[in-house]
C-alpha cells in the first residue's frame, strides 16, 4: 500500500506504535445551535496523546526498537505527524473518514499549507461536516480495523499506545477495539508504563481511595495512558530542518466505515422543561419550605465499609433491591 518514512522505520527491533488524535484543542461551540467550528490554528495533540508519543519514544529506546506514529484524519494531521517525524518516529496518515480528498480540504497548517494555499482560509480544515457526521455514526471498530491494516503495512506491532483522553471523542473505545483487531493484550487508563527486563511491561492504574494497581502486561499489547505530568520532548533543530516538509505517506482505507447508526444531524443537548406544580402553603415561608424540602426528615446516607469487595458488592445489590431498582 504505502511505505512509512522516517528514521524510526528503518532497522529492526520491536515496533512501538502510537495512535494520535489530531483535533482543534479549543473548538468554538455555538451555545444555541451546538454547531462545532474547528479551526486549523488550534490543531494539535492533547496532553495525553503527547505523553503517549513520549512514552513510545522512551520504550522504543529501551527496547532498541522503532516508533511508528499513526493518525487518522484529513491532511491537517500531517502537522503533528511531521513533528513526530522530527523526533525520529516513522509516520503514517490514514485518510479518515473515507471520502474524496480531491477538493483540497484540510491542508496541514504551517509549512505544508503553503503548497496548496490557493484559497484563503479553509472553512472545514478537518474535512467536510458530512464526513464528520459519518464518522460519528461509524463505530470505532471500523476505524480500529483500518488502523491495524495500515500498521501492518509497516510491521507487526509489539506495543500500541494511545492517549487515554482526547477532547474530541477520540480514544474512548478505540484502544479496546485495536486490541481486539490485533489479538493483543490490553491495559487501559494507565498512569505509568515502563518496560521490564524480561520484555514485559509494568503498568500502573489508579484505583479509588488513592490506591494504585500494578499490572504486568505481556506483549503484544495495546495500552492507553493519561499524561500524568509527562511532557513531550522537543525536537532538535537539525532534525526539525531535516524533517522539513517531507510528504507524509497516506494509507487509503480498504474497508468502508460502516456503522449501525445513521446520524442525520447533531444538536446541543437541551433537556425538556419539567413542569413543577406550585408549592402549597399559606405564607411565602411555607411555600419555600415545601419547594426546597427543608425540615423534612430524610433517610441518612448509609455508610458501607471499610469492607472487602464481595461484601461491598452484596451491600450495593441489597440497596438496589431495597429501593426497587432490581428485582430480588
Amino acid at each position, binding site marked *: 500500500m504505502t511505505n512509512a518514512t522516517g528514521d524510526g522505520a528503518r532497522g529492526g527491533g520491536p515496533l512501538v506504535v502510537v495512535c494520535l488524535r489530531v483535533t482543534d484543542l479549543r473548538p468554538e461551540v455555538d451555545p444555541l445551535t451546538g454547531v462545532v467550528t474547528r479551526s486549523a*490554528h488550534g490543531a*494539535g495533540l492533547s496532553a495525553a496523546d503527547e505523553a503517549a508519543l513520549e512514552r513510545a519514544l522512551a520504550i522504543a529506546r529501551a527496547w532498541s526498537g522503532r516508533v511508528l506514529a499513526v493518525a487518522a484524519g484529513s491532511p491537517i494531521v500531517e502537522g503533528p505527524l511531521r513533528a513526530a517525524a522530527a523526533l525520529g518516529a516513522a509516520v503514517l496518515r490514514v485518510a479518515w473518514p473515507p471520502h474524496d480528498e480531491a477538493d483540497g480540504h484540510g491542508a496541514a497548517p504551517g509549512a505544508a499549507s503553503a503548497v496548496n494555499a490557493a484559497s484563503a*482560509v479553509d472553512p472545514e480544515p478537518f474535512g467536510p461536516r458530512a464526513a464528520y457526521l459519518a464518522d460519528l455514526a461509524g463505530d470505532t471498530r471500523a476505524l480500529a480495523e483500518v488502523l491495524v491494516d495500515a500498521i501492518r503495512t509497516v510491521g507487526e506491532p509489539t506495543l500500541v499506545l494511545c492517549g487515554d483522553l482526547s477532547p474530541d471523542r477520540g480514544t474512548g473505545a478505540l484502544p479496546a477495539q485495536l486490541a481486539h483487531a490485533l489479538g493483543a493484550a490490553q491495559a487501559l487508563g494507565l498512569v505509568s508504563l515502563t518496560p521490564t527486563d524480561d520484555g514485559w511491561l509494568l503498568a500502573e492504574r489508579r484505583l479509588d481511595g488513592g490506591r494504585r494497581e500494578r499490572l504486568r502486561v505481556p506483549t503484544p499489547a495495546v495500552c492507553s495512558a493519561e499524561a500524568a505530568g509527562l511532557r513531550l520532548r*522537543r525536537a*532538535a*533543530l537539525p532534525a526539525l*530542518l531535516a524533517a522539513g516538509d517531507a510528504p507524509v505517506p497516506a494509507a487509503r482505507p480498504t474497508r468502508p466505515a460502516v456503522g449501525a447508526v445513521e446520524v442525520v444531524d447533531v444538536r446541543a443537548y437541551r433537556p425538556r422543561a419539567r413542569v413543577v406544580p406550585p408549592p402549597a402553603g399559606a405564607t411565602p415561608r411555607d411555600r419555600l419550605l415545601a419547594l426546597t424540602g427543608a425540615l423534612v426528615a430524610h433517610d441518612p446516607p448509609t455508610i458501607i465499609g471499610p469492607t472487602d469487595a464481595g461484601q461491598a458488592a452484596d451491600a450495593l445489590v441489597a440497596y438496589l433491591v431495597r429501593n426497587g431498582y432490581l428485582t430480588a
Partner: protein
Amino acid sequence: MADEQAPYAGPGTSPGTAVGDRPADVDVIVVGAGPAGAAAALAAARAGASVVLLERGPFPGSKNVYGGVIYGRILDAVLPNWWEEVPVERWVVRRSTMVLTETQALTVDFRTQTWAGPPYNGMTAYRADFDSWLAGKATAAGARLVTSTVATGLLRDAAGRVVGVRTDRTDGELRARVVIAADGVNSFLAKESGLLPKADPKHHTLGVKEVLSLPREVIDERFGLRGQEGLDIEMLGNTRGIPGGGFLYTNSDTVSIGAVLALPGLAAAKVRPEEIIADLKAHPAIAPYLRGATVKEYAAHLIPEGGYDHMPALATDGLLIAGDAAGMTLAAGIWLEGVNFAIGSGLVAGRVAAEAAAAGDASKKRLARYRDELEKQFVLADHKRLRGAPEIILSERIQRRYPGLVADLVESLFTVTNPEPKPGALALLRRAAKRNGVSLRELARDGLRIGKVFR
C-alpha cells in the same frame, strides 16, 4: 523559584556567542514570521537565497494583534491579484473619525464605493489568518518555516559580526550570511545587537482589544454595510486623560473594539487598560452599536510609536531589522498604519540580504543599502515627512483639551438659544476654548504646528 530559572537566562539577556568561521547553514535567517518577516523571507527566497524563517508561536500570526486596517497596495508588485485569495474579513469602505468626551461625540464619516472593489484600499482581517497566508507565500517561494522555535540570541564571529542565531532547541545554533530580525516590538535580537534600547516606555503604546461576536446581518444593519463592506472608526478622547485613542472595526461576524494607550500615561493614571475599553463600549455613541455583543477574544500588544526621530539604526554587520522591531509603525493621527510598513520594510530587507549573501559581503556598509532604499520608498519617506506627528498627536492639548473644545463648540453651534439671538461663531469658539482651558493663541500656534507637520 528564581533559582530554578537560573540556567535559562532567556532571549537577549546574554552577550552574543562568539563562534569560529564555520560555514553558514543558509544564506538568510529571518526571525519572526509576522508581516515583516514573511515579506523578508518571500523577497529573499525569490532573489534566490536559501532562507529559514523562524517563528516562536505554533503558527505565524499566533502572537500578533493589530488595530484596524491592513493596506495591501504594497503587495501589488509581489503578489499580483492578492485580493482574490487574501483571507479578508471585510474591505473598508467607511472611515470615521470620532472626537469623544464623556457625553459628546463628533464624527467625521467618509464612505466611498471605490474601495469596495478591486484593487481595494484597506481591509480588516484576523492576523492568525493573514500572517499564516503571507508566510505561506514565503514557503511557496522556497523559504523553510520553522515554528515553535524562539531565537534566544545572536551568534557572532571573532570580529563581532552577526553570523547566525541561537534557538531554544537542542543543537539550536543556526548560521547564516545575513540575519533579519523581524521579531516584533520587543525585539530581543535588536536589543542584544545594541540597535534598540532595553526599555523605552516613552515611545511605546499599549493596544488592548476585544473581539465581540455579533451576527453578520446585525453588523451589516447597524453599520450600514453590505456583503464584504467594512467600517473602521478611529476615536480621540474619552481615555481618562491617558494619551492615546480608541478604535472600532468590523470583521465578518465580529466587531473589534480597543484602545491604544501611551505607557507613561497608563502607568501614571493607575487605571486598568480593560477599563478604558469598557468606557468606550459604554459611551452613548458606541454602546448602541454593540448591544448584545459577547466577548470572543481579549488581546493586548505593544506598539512602537516613536516615529522617524526615534527609529534605531537599521543595520549592523550581518544583521538587519525590519517591521515593529525597527519601530516602523506609523501613528500619525489620521494615518494609522503598521502592517503595510512592516511588509514594505521586510520586502526591501529580504532583497538586500539576499544580494549581500550572494555577493559574500554582509558588512554594515553594504547593508546600509537597506536604509537607502527605504528612504526612497514610502516606508521612510512617510515617516520622515510625518516625523513631528507622534509628539503632537500625543501632546497634552490634543489629547485632553481639544476633544472637549471641539465638542463644546459644535454643541453650542447647534444648540438653539431662542429667544436669545445666535451668538457669533468666534464668540462660541472663544467660549469653548476658555471652558477647556485653551487660549486662542495656543490654538493658533497648534494649528500652525499641525499644518507644518502634515503639510
